[in-house]
């Protein structure tokens, strides 16, 4: 498991970033590109890590980094506007300031996945924390086996990164399958939950590592079905989510059983999570 890295001397102190670009992905989801206000390089991160983003005067939010780790001059976040703080964040305009703490948490174990097929399974906005994995694999294509991206969304209009999905599908040894829970008349793609895509994915379980991110209940279904298809629990990784505040394991807001999601996670191996996923109200 990759361990956390923190870029600032005092990880509780936000660094000043400016909004470089705001891109509308769907009706309620936006991708923000931030750059350091002092012109220096952005904090380096590992795929799967998150930052605490300060919207000054409103609050602080844990948001996964959704950009390319190779782009050292920026940090990219995809945010769904679902409440006051996220709405304030996506309403930032180019040049506005945002405070950034982090990156925090563990990353997807992309180095351990080298030489193997990488199975990326995303639901809804869960594609955002997985996009850096896709960039990482495509940036170092020779180091990995097949890349299989399985993506489920609520409806066609909720799909993120549509142009990139098409571009990824054209890459060498890369399979992209997209499904929606509710398809309209004009939709010609798959309809059904994300697990229905497994049968089309030409999986080779013995040589695959799976990274899954989405609503927790989706990940339960996904992990269980992956096991049924022959993937070992230790080759399945999940990105967990709880109410993170400090990002460093001090405050305890994100405690999940014996784990702090912010410090020990958010990426966990399925065999670590399985006993907890079956418990109610954890």
């Amino acid at each position, binding site marked *: 498991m990759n361990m956390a890295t923190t870029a600032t001397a005092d990880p509780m102190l936000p660094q000043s970033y400016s909004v470089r670009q705001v891109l509308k992905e769907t009706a309620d989801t936006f991708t923000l590109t931030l750059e350091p206000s002092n012109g220096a390089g952005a904090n380096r991160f590992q795929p799967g890590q998150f930052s605490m983003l300060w919207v000054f005067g409103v609050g602080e939010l844990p948001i996964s980094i959704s950009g390319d780790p190779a782009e050292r001059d920026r940090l990219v976040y995809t945010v769904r506007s679902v409440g006051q703080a996220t709405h304030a964040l996506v309403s930032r305009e180019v040049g506005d300031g945002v405070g950034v703490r982090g990156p925090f948490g563990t990353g997807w174990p992309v180095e351990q996945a080298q030489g193997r097929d990488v199975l990326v399974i995303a639901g*809804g906005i869960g594609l955002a924390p997985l996009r850096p994995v896709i960039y990482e694999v495509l940036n170092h294509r020779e180091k990995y086996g097949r890349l299989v991206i399985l993506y489920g969304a*609520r409806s066609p209009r909720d799909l993120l990164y549509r142009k990139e999905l098409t571009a990824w599908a054209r890459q060498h040894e890369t399979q992209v399958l997209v499904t929606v829970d509710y398809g309209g*008349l004009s939709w010609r793609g798959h*309809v059904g939950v994300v697990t229905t895509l497994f049968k089309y994915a030409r999986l080779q379980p013995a040589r695959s590592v799976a990274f899954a991110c989405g609503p927790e209940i989706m990940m339960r279904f996904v992990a269980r079905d992956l096991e049924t298809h022959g993937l070992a629990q230790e080759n399945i990784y999940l990105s967990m989510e709880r109410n993170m505040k400090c990002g460093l394991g001090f405050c305890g807001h994100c405690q999940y059983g014996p784990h702090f999601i912010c410090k020990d996670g958010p990426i966990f191996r399925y065999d670590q999570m399985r006993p907890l996923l079956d418990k109610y109200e954890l």
Partner: protein
Amino acid sequence: METLERIIAEHPFFAGLESYYTSLLTGCASNIRFDQGSYIFRDGEEANAFYLLRSGKVAIEIFPPQGRPVSVATMGEGEVLGWSWLLPPYQWKYNAHSIEPVRAIALDGKCLRNKCEQNHDLGYEMLKRFAKIMEHRLEETRFQLLDVYAVGR
């Protein structure tokens, strides 16, 4: 040249089926194609066949009251379309709409029901295989009903 019997034997739905049964099934089978945009069956029609999909994509559609059809699932290569032929009243409850050109093996439901009545081992084998499909579809439908990507989930 692929024979019908071989195609049936190699379809995932009949994986592991004894060759004796495959021969029985072949007597009820025929090759069939559907153009993109055509209806394989419609809600309310008599259900007298099922289909082993070899290529293409089929949308299962429901008509909400006074609404336009809604696609609730899609099926493709290696899957089986239709089980209403198996149980009374032998009537389709959805539309099956080919959204890509489809190649399939059609199995005549009446023919197969007769063979299953005459040979209960075959009937049991068919029921076991369809029950597994029904279980998967039920589980997928329950998962779909959870609407896990809705705001606030």
